[in-house]
């Protein structure tokens, strides 16, 4: 900043006559919408990182069995409530690759707990691409190769073992398969219902609008959890884990749609007065076509952003239901089912690692929130 003799201030940077042109390049104006959104979204660092993290998590799901050293219901009865083991690289100052110390359980007759004492004289290197219990890759291909596993005579409990001596780390990986997909199925149900009812109400108006609006108001004014509880209590207890899983996600979706429907309805109310809608109608397009081809694409991206923001609620909902014993039940593995073990204060105090599944829950929920925020912010690419 320089001060001129007449008292004005002038920027020191050289004048760039191209600046204003570079700002609104022709190429940019012609670029498709998704490209503009992507460019803006890229600048939202937190959202980008969250998005990548979530993408990786979902890509991991089919390979959970490969990454996990144990299968979810494999019990190592010698190691009930074994604490987390560290993977070390250096033994007595020398690098010998990743290894673990074998642990041995000794009954403590004063506290009546198992005490696990690592044998520090025998470092046992981890094996890679080794054979273990067989599992199904992506639920289809049978395989027994694991990414890493403990050598004969040792165990590898990265995050400890639970009440029955099952590996918490492996169970978290398997649990992700259900806990992460529950939100996706739920949101599809909610999306279908929300867009369906919302567009009918907004497009046709009148009595239908009134009726749908009342339903939305009533559903929105009710506390969700008691209804979830009541609905899932109605799921017959003799159903298999897979059908219970589906019905639970549908239940989560059924109570979520009113919020979405309201947003869709409000948009439709304003958009249906636009000229291009009238034009389409004049040309004889059916209502369904007008809704699908002319109106919905206008704010699909907004809907996707708001859907991203409501997935976490469903993940938390599944966790809460399973935690209370009304959602998924063992032998199905989900994060909520795992936390069921950590339900009392004793386990938090003595075996804090049984509560580890809360970490992935928090991280995933936060990631969805950040991703949703980032998407919402970058949806108006023309706005600076």
């Amino acid at each position, binding site marked *: 900043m320089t001060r001129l003799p007449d008292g004005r201030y002038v920027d020191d940077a050289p004048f760039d006559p191209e600046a204003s042109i570079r700002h609104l390049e022709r190429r940019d104006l012609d670029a498709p919408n998704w490209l503009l959104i992507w460019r803006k979204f890229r600048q939202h660092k937190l959202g980008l990182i969250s998005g990548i993290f979530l993408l990786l998590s979902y890509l991991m799901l089919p390979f959970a069995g490969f990454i996990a050293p144990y299968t979810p219901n494999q019990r190592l009865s010698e190691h009930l409530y074994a604490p987390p083991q560290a993977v070390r690289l250096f033994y007595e100052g020398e690098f010998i690759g990743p290894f673990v110390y074998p642990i041995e359980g000794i009954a403590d007759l004063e506290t009546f707990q198992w005490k696990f004492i690592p044998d520090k004289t025998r470092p046992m290197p981890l094996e890679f691409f080794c054979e273990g219990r067989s599992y199904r890759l992506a639920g289809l291909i049978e395989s027994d190769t694991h990414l890493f596993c403990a050598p004969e005579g040792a165990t590898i409990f990265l995050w400890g073992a639970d009440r029955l001596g099952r590996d918490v780390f492996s169970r978290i990986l398997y649990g992700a398969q259900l806990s992460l997909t529950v939100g996706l199925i739920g949101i599809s149900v909610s999306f279908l219902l929300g867009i369906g009812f919302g567009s009918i109400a907004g497009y046709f108006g009148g009595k239908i609008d009134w009726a749908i609006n009342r339903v939305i108001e009533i559903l929105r004014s*009710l*506390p969700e959890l*008691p209804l979830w509880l009541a609905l899932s*209590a109605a799921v017959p207890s003799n159903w298999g884990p897979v059908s219970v899983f589906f019905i639970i996600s549908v239940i989560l979706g059924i109570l979520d749609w009113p919020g979405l429907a309201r947003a869709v309805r409000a948009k439709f109310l304003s958009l249906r007065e636009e000229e291009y809608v009238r034009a389409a109608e004049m040309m004889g397009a059916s209502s369904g076509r007008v809704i699908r081809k002319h109106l919905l694409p206008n704010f699909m991206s907004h809907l996707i952003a708001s859907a991203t923001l409501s997935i976490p609620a469903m993940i938390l909902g599944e966790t809460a239901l399973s935690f209370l014993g009304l959602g998924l039940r063992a032998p199905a593995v989900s994060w909520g089912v795992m936390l069921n073990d950590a339900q009392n204060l004793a386990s938090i105090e003595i075996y804090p690692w049984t509560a580890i599944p809360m970490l992935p829950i928090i991280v995933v929920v936060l990631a969805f929130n950040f991703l949703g925020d980032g998407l919402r912010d970058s949806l108006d690419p023309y706005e600076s």
Partner: protein
Amino acid sequence: MLILRYAIYRFATMLLTLLVVSVLVFVIINLPPGDYLSNQIAELRASGQEAGVAKAEFLRKEYALDRPLWEQYMIWVGFLPGPNGFSGLVQGNFGWSFEFDQPVSEIVGESLWLTVLVNLAAVLFVYLVALPLGVLAAARSKSWVDYTSAFVGYLGLATPNFLLALILFYYGHKYFNLPIGGMMDPVYEGQPMGWDKAKSILIHLIVPTFVIGTSGASAMMQRLRANMLDELGKPYVETAIAKGMSPRRMLTKYPLRVAFNPFVADIGNLLPAMVSGSVLVSVVLGLQTIGPTLLTALKTQDQFLSGFVLMFVALLTLMGTMISDVLLVLLDPRIRYEGRDV
């Protein structure tokens, strides 16, 4: 008295909503095949205890469970005479709990008030926390206050309620010697309300209030912050500063006043989530609210009990929403709900 008319109108719609809700609740609790008594009868038959069957059959008749569903509903609500004349929810008879073998009103009794108390405390907590933090975060946006409150807010949204409850209980007990579980010292249970009992309840309320209120408070805080930021960007704020008003007075006098409306209106959106949260938290913490009762009732298909608890929870939410709507009209004279040409 426009406000009175509005209040009456709002009350009427609440009653109508409640009626629809009662149908919904009735359908939901009747979704599982069979009912408590028919399950019991089947069980008794299987084990050959014919004496019990007669009693169960009698109860079935007594509570009209042998009639078609719609009649059962009408009798439950109290629109049709049951075997003992009109005695439904409307007449103040909440039915019989088969699981506990007691009238529903006796089982829920005190826990109704405790439920209301827990939720009231949580709402108060939300206001007390969200208001100063939201305003501060907006006034000092992009400073450490803003970032810290945003971080805490996000964590509050992301942590499952029940886990937060367990963890807070553990640390609260370890470091502050807060009591674990329950709504009051077991000594005071069943005792008449007195000073000591009230004090005991208050101390026991600290953790549950915190747990139930956190997610609501963080949502509210974020919204208040956004509203405040919108207001702070308006020209009148600049004018006020140019006139030489002190920042604090300017902040409280104008933007806060405007940003406050959504704050009150929001409680209607927030309340369902908080009541949900209180049910869950009560189960985990063993509070003597109706949460644990609801869970047992649902698991055992104790239909009158679960039906009543669900209705009560819905009523609580609807009342809260109604009060917030009426308050909003009082607070903001610009809001008028009746038609334009009155």
